[in-house]
C-alpha cells in the first residue's frame, strides 16, 4: 500500500493547485482579443436579441417568448426599479437597470455554460468598469437633482443628528456613501465570480489528478471531488444569479438614495 503510494507520487508530477494565473487567458489566435472580451460581446448580443425579439410583437395576449421576455423585464422593472426607486420616477432608470441586470446575469452564467465555462467578471477590470459606471450614474443623478453641493451635503450630513456629532459623522458618511460604494460593488461581483471559478477548477483538476494516480483510495477521493464539483456548480448558478441581482438592487438603492430628499 505504502509502496504503491510512494511509487505513484514518484512517477506522477506534483499537483499544481490552480492560481490566479488561470484567469490570464491568452489572446485568441495571437491577437489581443481574449475570451472574456468575446464573452462580453456575446452576452450583449444574447441579451439584446432575446429582449428585442420578445418585445417586438407587442401582442395583447403574449406568446411564449413574449411572456418570458415580459416576465424577465417586468421582474427588473417592478420588483427592483419600481419597488425601490418608487413609482414616481423609476421609469427612466428601467432600461439602465435592466441592461445591468441581464448583462451581468448572462456574463455570470457563462461560467456554468459548457464550452464557455468562464465568468466574465472574474476579470476584475470588467467589474471595475460597471461599478465605476454605477458610481457615475448615481452621483450624476443626485447632483442633477440637488446640485453638486446640495447632493454632497445630502449624502454626507446625516439628518436628525446633533451638529456636535458632525465632525465624526460627516467624514464617515462621505467615505461610506461616496468612496466605498463603487469599491464594494466591484469587489463583491469580482470576488464571487473569481472564487467560484477557482473553486470549481480546483475540484475538477484535483479530482482528475487523484483519479489519474490510480490508487483505489485516491480514485474514491477523486470521484467524491467530482461529485462535489457538480454540487458546487449548482451552488454557483445560484451565486451567479444572486450577484447579478444584488448588483442591480444596489444600483437601484443608490439611485433612490441620491434622489431622496432626506437621507
Amino acid at each position, binding site marked *: 500500500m505504502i509502496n504503491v503510494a510512494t511509487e505513484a507520487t514518484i512517477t506522477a508530477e506534483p499537483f499544481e493547485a490552480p492560481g490566479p494565473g488561470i484567469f490570464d487567458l491568452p489572446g485568441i489566435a495571437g491577437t489581443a482579443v481574449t475570451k472574456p472580451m468575446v464573452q462580453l460581446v456575446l452576452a*450583449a448580443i444574447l441579451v439584446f436579441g432575446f429582449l428585442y425579439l420578445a418585445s417586438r410583437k407587442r401582442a395583447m395576449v*403574449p406568446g411564449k417568448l413574449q411572456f418570458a421576455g415580459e416576465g424577465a423585464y*417586468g421582474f427588473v422593472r417592478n420588483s427592483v426599479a419600481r419597488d425601490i426607486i418608487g413609482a414616481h420616477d423609476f421609469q427612466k432608470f428601467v432600461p*439602465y437597470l*435592466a441592461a445591468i441586470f441581464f448583462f451581468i446575469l448572462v456574463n455570470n452564467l457563462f461560467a456554468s455554460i459548457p464550452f464557455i465555462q468562464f465568468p466574465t467578471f*472574474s476579470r476584475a*477590470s470588467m467589474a*471595475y*468598469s460597471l461599478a465605476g459606471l454605477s458610481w457615475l450614474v448615481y452621483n450624476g443623478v443626485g447632483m442633477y437633482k440637488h446640485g453638486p453641493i446640495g447632493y454632497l451635503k445630502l449624502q454626507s450630513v446625516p439628518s436628525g443628528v446633533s451638529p456636535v456629532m458632525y465632525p465624526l459623522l460627516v467624514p464617515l458618511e462621505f467615505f461610506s456613501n461616496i468612496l466605498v460604494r463603487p469599491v464594494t460593488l466591484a469587489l463583491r461581483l469580482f470576488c464571487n465570480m473569481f472564487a467560484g471559478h477557482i473553486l470549481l477548477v480546483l475540484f475538477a483538476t484535483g479530482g482528475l489528478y487523484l483519479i489519474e494516480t490510480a490508487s483505489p483510495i485516491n480514485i474514491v477521493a477523486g470521484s467524491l471531488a467530482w461529485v462535489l464539483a457538480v454540487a458546487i456548480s449548482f451552488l454557483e448558478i445560484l451565486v451567479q444569479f444572486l450577484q447579478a441581482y444584488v448588483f442591480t438592487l444596489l444600483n437601484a438603492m443608490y439611485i433612490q438614495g441620491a434622489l431622496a430628499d432626506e437621507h
Partner: protein
Amino acid sequence: MKSLLVILAAEGGHEPSPLAVEWIEVVIALVVFGILFFLIWKFVAPNFEKTFSERTQAIEGGLAAAETKQAEADAKLAELEAQLADARHEAARIREEAREQGAAIVAEMREQAQAESSRIVEHGKAQIEAERQQAVTSLRGEVGSLATTLAGRIVGESLDDDARQGRVVERFLAELETGTPGAN
C-alpha cells in the same frame, strides 16, 4: 501582457495581481455595456412599456365596457319587470272588470227574465180572467135559459112571463154568486 508575464516569470517574480486594472478591459466592458444600454433604451424598453400600458388600457376598457353592459342589462331588466308588473296589473283589472260586467249582465238578465215571467204571468192571469168573465157571462145566459126551461117544464106555463122569469133567474144567480155551498 504576455511578455510581462514571461519577464516576471523569468525574474522569478509573482504573477500579476488579479486585482490589477487592465484598461483595455475596462474600456471594452464600458463600450459593450454602453451599446447594450442604448439598444435596450431605444428598442426594448419602449416596446415593453407600450405593451404594458396598452394591456392595462385594454383591461380597464374591457372592465368599463362590461360595467356599461351590465348597467344596460340591469336597466332593461328593470324595464321589463316594470312592464310585466303593468301587464299583470292590467290583466287583473280586466279580469275584475269582466267579472263585474258578467255579474251585471247576469243580474240584468235575471231582472229581464223576472220581468218577462211576471209579464207572462200577468198576461195569463188577465186572459184567464177575461175567459172566466166570458164563460161566466155565457154560462149566466145559458144556465138561466136552461133553468127557466127546466122550471117551465116543471111548473108549466105559469112562468112564461118574461119579466118574472128574468127576476127569478137574477135572484138565483145572485144566490149562486154569494157562495152557496155546492154550487159553482
